[in-house]
C-alpha cells in the first residue's frame, strides 16, 4: 500500500515538469466562516474543483477580518504566503507596495474585466498599471431598513431627508417604539455616521472629507451638522444599545420593538433567514440623500512559487469574476454582483434597487467608497476617524469639539 502510494507520488513529481498544465492549487485565506457566507464560498470552491483544482480552505473569522489580517502578516513574514487572500480597499494597494502581490492582468484582460466592472470599482482592483485583485460583490452600506407594519400603524413613510427621519422618530418615540435599532460597536457607529455624512455633505462633500481628507471639509459647518444629527440619533436609540451585535438590532426591527435600522445589505440576510419578505414584512431604502456607498469584497493573489499555485490563482481569478459565481454568490450573500452584465432575474426587490442606484450613481459620480468598511482610506486614517465618531456618539461631547478632534486625529494619523 505504502509502496504504491510512493510510486504514484514519484510518478507525479517526475511527470509534472513535462505537463503543459500544472494542476491548479489554491490555499485561500478568508473570513467568511458561518452560515450563508460559508455557503457562498463553498460555491466558489465547487467551481474550482470542477475545473480540476485543489482548494485548501484557510478560514479565520473575527473582527471583520482583523484576525485574518494578523494571520496574513505572520504568513507573509514567515515566507509562507497563502495563494489567495480576501482583501479589500486600499489595503490591496498597500500590500502591493510591500511587494507581496502577484499580477493577474493576463486573466483580467482576457476576460475583459475593464468592460464589465464599474470604473470606480475596477480602480480598487488595480495596482499601478496591473490588475492585482478580483472583485466578488458589491455591498451597499447606506441602507435604511424598516418594519413595514410599524410604519403603517403610525402612518409613516420611508424618510427621504434626515429632517423627515427625525420627525418620524419623534412620533414613534411618543408611541413607545424605539425609533432606531442600533448596536453600539465602533464600526456600527461609523456605519451610521457615514450614512448621515453622505446625506448632509452630499456626494462631493463626502469624497472631499473621507477620500481626500480635505481639512476644510472636515472642519466645515456641514461637518458640525453631521455630528449634530449623530447626537440627535443618539436620542433615538434605546438605553441598552451598547455593545449590541448588529443582528440583534435587526431582530428588534423584525419583531416590531424598533422601527428603523441603518446597516449594510447583509442585514437583509438576517430578515430572509427569519422568513420575512422584502416589501411586505420589511422595507429597504437608501438612507436620506443621494449617492451610493459601496463595500466591495475581493480576493488578492499573493506572490507565490510553483506553477500549480500560479495556475490556481489564474483559475480562481477567472471564476470569481465569472457570471455564474457572481450570481450564485450574491444571491446567498445579500449583495449584488460586481459585474454589471449579470441577469438579476432571481434577485429580490432590494437588490434591484441597489443595482439601479449603482448604475445611476456610477454615471453621475456619486458612487463612493465606504470609509467605515475600509474602502476609502488606509486603516490608520479610517481608524482615527472612527475613534472620534464613537467617542462623540458615546459621550456628551459637543459637535464643535468633535470636529476639532477629528481634524487633529486625522492629521496625527498621516
Amino acid at each position, binding site marked *: 500500500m505504502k509502496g504504491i502510494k510512493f510510486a504514484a507520488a514519484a510518478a507525479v513529481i517526475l511527470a509534472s515538469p513535462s505537463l503543459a498544465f500544472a494542476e491548479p492549487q489554491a490555499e485561500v485565506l478568508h473570513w467568511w466562516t458561518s452560515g450563508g457566507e460559508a455557503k457562498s464560498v463553498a460555491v466558489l470552491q465547487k467551481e474550482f474543483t470542477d475545473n480540476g483544482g485543489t482548494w485548501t480552505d484557510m478560514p479565520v473569522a473575527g*473582527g471583520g477580518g482583523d484576525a485574518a*489580517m494578523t494571520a496574513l502578516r505572520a504568513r507573509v513574514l514567515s515566507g509562507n504566503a497563502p495563494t489567495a487572500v480576501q482583501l479589500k480597499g486600499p489595503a490591496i494597494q498597500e500590500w502591493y507596495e510591500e511587494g507581496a502581490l502577484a499580477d493577474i492582468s493576463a486573466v483580467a484582460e482576457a476576460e475583459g474585466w475593464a468592460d464589465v466592472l464599474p470604473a470606480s470599482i475596477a480602480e480598487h482592483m488595480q495596482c499601478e498599471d496591473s490588475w492585482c485583485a478580483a472583485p466578488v460583490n458589491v455591498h451597499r452600506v447606506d441602507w435604511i431598513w424598516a418594519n413595514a407594519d410599524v410604519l403603517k400603524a403610525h402612518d409613516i413613510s420611508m424618510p427621504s431627508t434626515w429632517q423627515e427621519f427625525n420627525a418620524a422618530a419623534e412620533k414613534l418615540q411618543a408611541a413607545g417604539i424605539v425609533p432606531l435599532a442600533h448596536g453600539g*460597536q*465602533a464600526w456600527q457607529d461609523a456605519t451610521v455616521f457615514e450614512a448621515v455624512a453622505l446625506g448632509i455633505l452630499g456626494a462631493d462633500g463626502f469624497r472631499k472629507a473621507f477620500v481626500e481628507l480635505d481639512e476644510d471639509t472636515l472642519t466645515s459647518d456641514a461637518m458640525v451638522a453631521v455630528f449634530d444629527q449623530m447626537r440627535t440619533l443618539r436620542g433615538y436609540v434605546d438605553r441598552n*444599545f*451598547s*455593545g449590541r451585535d448588529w443582528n440583534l438590532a435587526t431582530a428588534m426591527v423584525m419583531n416590531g420593538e424598533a422601527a428603523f435600522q441603518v446597516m449594510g445589505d447583509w442585514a437583509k440576510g438576517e430578515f430572509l433567514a427569519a422568513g420575512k419578505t422584502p416589501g411586505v414584512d420589511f422595507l429597504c431604502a437608501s438612507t436620506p440623500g443621494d449617492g451610493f456607498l459601496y463595500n466591495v469584497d475581493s480576493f488578492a493573489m499573493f506572490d507565490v512559487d510553483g506553477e500549480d499555485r500560479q495556475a490556481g490563482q489564474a483559475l480562481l481569478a477567472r471564476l470569481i469574476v465569472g457570471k455564474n459565481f457572481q450570481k450564485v454568490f450574491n444571491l446567498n450573500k445579500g449583495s449584488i454582483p460586481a459585474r454589471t452584465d449579470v441577469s438579476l432575474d432571481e434577485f429580490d426587490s432590494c437588490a434591484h434597487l441597489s443595482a439601479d442606484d449603482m448604475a445611476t450613481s456610477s454615471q453621475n459620480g456619486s458612487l463612493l467608497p465606504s470609509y467605515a468598511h475600509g474602502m476609502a482610506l488606509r486603516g*490608520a486614517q479610517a*481608524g482615527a476617524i472612527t475613534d472620534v465618531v464613537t467617542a462623540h456618539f458615546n459621550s456628551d461631547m459637543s459637535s464643535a469639539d468633535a470636529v476639532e478632534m477629528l481634524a487633529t486625529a486625522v492629521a496625527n494619523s498621516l
Partner: protein
Amino acid sequence: MADWLERNVPRILLAPSFLIVLIFVYGFIAWTAWVSMTRSRLLPKYEIEGFIQYERLFAAPRWDTAMNNLFIFGALFIVVSMMLGLLLAILLDQKIRIEGALRTIYLYPMALSMIVTGTAWQWVMNPGLGIEAVVRGWGFENFAFDWVIDPDMAIFAIVIAAVWQASGFVMALFLAGLRSVDDEIIKAAKVDGIPTWRIYSAIVIPSMAPVFLSAFIVLAHLAIKSFDLVIALTGGGPGYATDLPATYMYAMAFSRGDIGQAASSAMVMMAVVFAIVVPYLYSELRVKRG
C-alpha cells in the same frame, strides 16, 4: 573533566532556557524598540525616523484612556482577585465535605475561552436582558446594574468578569500554599492558646510569601495582557471607554496597519511593567536570599 562537568551541570542545564529567554524575550523587545523608531505601516521597516511614533502616541486621546484604564483595571483586578482567592482558600480549608465540587466550580472559569464566555457575560450584564431585568422582574423596579453600558463604569464591569475568571486559580495557589504550612508550628501555637485569626495573620499568611509572589505575577501578567476579555465583553466600548493598552496595540498593528505606532505603545507598556514589577521582584528576591 568529569569533576568540572559535575560541578557545572546546573549551569549547563540552565543555559538553554536562559538563551531562549535572551533571544525570544529580550531580543524581540530590542526589535520592537527599533521598529518603534520607524515609520512602519503594514509590515515592519527598518529606517530609523526618530521619536515620531511616540509623539503620535502621546497625542492620541484614546491612548490616554487606555493607560488610565490599565491602572484602574490592573489595581482593582489584582487586589480583588488576591483577596477573594485568599478568602475562598481559607474558607475551603475548613474541612468542607464538598470541597472537591466547590473547588472545581471556583476554578472552572479559567478553563473557558473568553471568546464565548464574553457573550454570556454580555447578556448577564446587559440591563435589558440580564441581572437588572431579572431583579426588576421580581418587583424591585428601581434596581439598576447598568455598568456595562455606562462609559464611566464599564471598566468596572470588565473587572468583575476578569475577577470571575482568574480568582479561582489564585484560590488554588493559596490553597496549596495553606496546606504546605508546617503543622508543628500551628499545633504549637494552638497549644499556646493563640486565637485562630492570629495564627492566620501572624503565622500562616506570612509564611506564604512565595505564593503571594506567584499569585501577583500571574495576576499582573493577566492584567497586562487582558485582551480577549475586553474584545469579547465590550469590544473596547462604549466608544473606546474600556480600551486597554493591549487592545490598542493590537488594533494599531493588525487592523489599522500602523505597526510603528503599535511598537511604540508596546514599549510604553513594557516600561510600565518594568516600573511596577522590578521593584517588587527585587524586594521579594532580597528577602529570600537573606
